[in-house]
C-alpha cells in the first residue's frame, strides 16, 4: 500500500510512474518491478517520480541497483523529478551526479 506503480512503453523507453512513498517497506516492490522489466528485456527505463511524496535511502538503493542492472545491458535509467525536497536528497547523497534527472517526461524522452 501507499506505493503505486504504473508502467507504459513509449518510443523505446519503459516509463514507470511511481506514486506515494518509496521507503523501507515499499522499496522492495519497486525493486521487483525493475527486476521484472529488465528480465523481460526492457533496458531503457524512465522512472517518473513526480507523484512521489517520500524517498529514503532504501529507495535510493533500489534506484542505484536498477541503474547497475540496466547498465549491465548497455541500457539507461533516467529519472523525472521536479520536487525540491527530493532533489535535495539526491544532492546530499551525491547521486544527483550519478543519475540523469529530468524535469518532465517530454524532457526525459527527448534526450538521446
Amino acid at each position, binding site marked *: 500500500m501507499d506505493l503505486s506503480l504504473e508502467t507504459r512503453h513509449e518510443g523505446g523507453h519503459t516509463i514507470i510512474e511511481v506514486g506515494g512513498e518509496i521507503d523501507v517497506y515499499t522499496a522492495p516492490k519497486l525493486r521487483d518491478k525493475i527486476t521484472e522489466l529488465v528480465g523481460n528485456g526492457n533496458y531503457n527505463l524512465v522512472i517518473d517520480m513526480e507523484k512521489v511524496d*517520500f524517498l*529514503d535511502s532504501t529507495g535510493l538503493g533500489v534506484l542505484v541497483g536498477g541503474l547497475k542492472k540496466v547498465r549491465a545491458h548497455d541500457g539507461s535509467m533516467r529519472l523525472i523529478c521536479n520536487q525540491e525536497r527530493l532533489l535535495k536528497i539526491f544532492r546530499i547523497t*551525491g547521486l544527483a551526479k550519478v543519475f540523469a534527472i529530468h524535469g518532465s517526461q517530454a524532457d526525459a524522452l527527448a534526450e538521446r
Partner: protein
Amino acid sequence: MAAAGAARTTTGISVSIARDPALVRTVRLVAAAVARRASHDEEFVEEVRLAVGEACALLVGETDESANGGPVEVTMRLEDRLRVAVSANGSVAAADPPTSDIDGVEPWALLRGLIEDFDISRAAGSTTLSMSWALA
C-alpha cells in the same frame, strides 16, 4: 499562539515499534507531528520526517527476518532543541561499519548530510542514533 509557547516546555513522546518495515511510516507521521508543534516551517518538518524515518528504517532493516531483534525505540523531546534518539537492541541491520554499501548507497550519507547534529553510539549490543535541531 499557545502551541508555540508550549513548545518551550519539555514535552515528549516516545514510540516503540516491532521491527516491521510497515510501521516506519507511522513513526514518520509522529515525527512530522512533533516537528510541526515546534515550527510551522514545512521545510523543517519535512527534514525531521525524513531524518527520523531514515534512522528508523536503518535500524528496522528491510526484511522481516530481523523481527526477533526486539523493538526499535524512538524518543522525541521538545526542550531547548528538538532532540530525537532512535535505538535498537540486539543485531542491527545497519551495525556494519559506516563504510558499508547497500546496493551502492552509503547508509549514513543521507543522515550525516541532512543533520548538523548527528551521532551514532553503540553500547552493549545496542545502537543509538541521536540527532537534534535548533528551534527557530
